[in-house]
């Protein structure tokens, strides 16, 4: 065996060891990624099923309708209000008047008043509702009115001051 042959065998061995090591590392990474992918696909399947269920469930909820109060009694005010509504991206948001400094809406006698809330020039809640709860105050008396948008269909309104 010549010295050259021995040297080249050593270089080749080194290259081979490096290549085998690279192959093993790549192989291990490939296998572990595949295991993660398999888990993720399982999670995806479960999430899609949940998501599908959620979409179908949401179809049972009523659509947005503009909330307005028909005041059948004397002068008063809406002293507290919370409303839940669909957003354009299909999620449900809520408006809570207490979070806006206990904002109130005047209710002139016998008038119909559309509910909405504007912060300066920005309209932050346009009055849409699928579920609402409103407290109407006249003097010391308070009336709680709650309902769904099914009660507001066809330009209907939530009746205040009517027993």
């Amino acid at each position, binding site marked *: 065996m010549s010295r050259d042959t021995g040297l080249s065998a050593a270089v080749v061995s080194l290259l081979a060891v490096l290549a085998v090591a690279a192959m093993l590392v790549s192989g291990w990474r490939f296998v572990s990624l595949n295991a993660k992918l398999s888990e993720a696909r399982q999670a995806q399947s479960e999430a899609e099923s*949940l998501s599908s269920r*959620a979409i179908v469930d949401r179809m049972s909820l009523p659509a947005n309708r503009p909330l307005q109060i028909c005041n059948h009694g004397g002068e008063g005010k809406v002293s507290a209000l919370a409303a839940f509504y669909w957003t354009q991206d299909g999620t449900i948001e809520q408006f809570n008047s207490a979070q806006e400094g206990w904002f109130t809406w005047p209710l002139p006698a016998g008038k119909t008043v559309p509910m909405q809330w504007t912060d300066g020039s920005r309209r932050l809640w346009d009055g849409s509702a699928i579920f609402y709860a409103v407290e109407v105050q006249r003097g010391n008396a308070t009336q709680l009115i709650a309902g*769904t948008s099914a009660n507001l269909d066809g330009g209907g309104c939530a009746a205040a001051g009517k027993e």
Partner: protein
Amino acid sequence: MQLRDAFLTIESTTEGRNALRLTAMGGTVRPGAAQILPSCQELSTVMQADGPVIVVEGFAGESLAEMARRAPLRSSQAIALLRSMATAVDELHRMGFVHGRLRAESFLVDAQQRVRLVDWAFQWQPPTPEQLKQLAHTAAPEIIFGEAALAASDQFAFGALAHLLLTGHLPFGGASASETLLATLSGHWSLGEAGELPGDAFSRVFSHEPAQRFNSCTAFVDAMDREMAEAAAPLAAPAPVAAYSGTYSAPVAAAAVEPAGPGWWARNGLLVAGVCAALAFALGIASWFVQRQLAEVQATVGESMKTAKWSLADNGRMKVCNNSQHPVIIRDLAVGYWDANRKLTVFESSRAQHGGWTVEPESEQSLSSLAGPWNGSVVFYYLHVEQQSKEYLLSGTWQTVPKGCLSIASP
């Protein structure tokens, strides 16, 4: 002739034409529809458009829905009919329009199997949940998700109609519209009783992703036709194997004969290193692809969970936890909850003439009406509470309440 479905009525006029009247919200006549002359006879020519009514050329036929109700067509008949229908839908797309409400009632078929797509001149807003129930059997997943209709969405509906013609029933079935929509979203459809349908073509046309569907309805019909022809053809005889007459000496065999040593390494070690390096490279590329897929799947999971988060499927049980040192008085309460008929129902405390609830310090209390029909079920809640002369207004969806107990310790 008089036909009616959830979206349109079709009646014959005294001049022998067909008058189509919109009967559903969200539909309008395409601007200038009466000035458009379709370049294929499968699209009905609009003679007159007036408000919610259009008058189209006369065509004596029955709707595809009626035709399919009688009996499934023979495959060759169905393919011929589907070709004509595909021509109509593809031409509509070529004109830059999307149908958006493609269903069996959209097509009229006469005794000579000629076809007219009669209601192409209407355009539609995304369907309301109520309309979606009417479209449950043909709506593509993106329509169910509330997205705008695409040409590929029409193709999905076209696939459902093809299934109807070939089998006599629509592909996505369920006891209710909700179950049908769920079947669509889950991709559960049948290959027919005898598994006779061209499965590959239908799998592609019912792809969840619009981009994965065919380029056109005609391409889908071609693929079905091809697949059915291949299934009907006898199996081809296997190609003869050429007789092996040479000699073969593999490197492995040589290695087995020649003892391994420095000389062998010098000659073959480089080959081994090269093979390993190539394998490492290939595995690296494969890992990169898997990594990409993983990222995509994880993103999808995130999106789906975002939607699933808004599931308001089940009622919660109204319970409040007072972790403070002072009693809390629930002055007013209103809740929305699912009743036994899956209708969102409202309970408000004043209606039940309830005097309110007091939750003692460091205690929890389940709420329900003592005399009324409310058993504590809740999806949406609204509480007006008082604590030490301070007032708070609490509202939200019950699914966001941690551990199923509304904490009013420091609202």
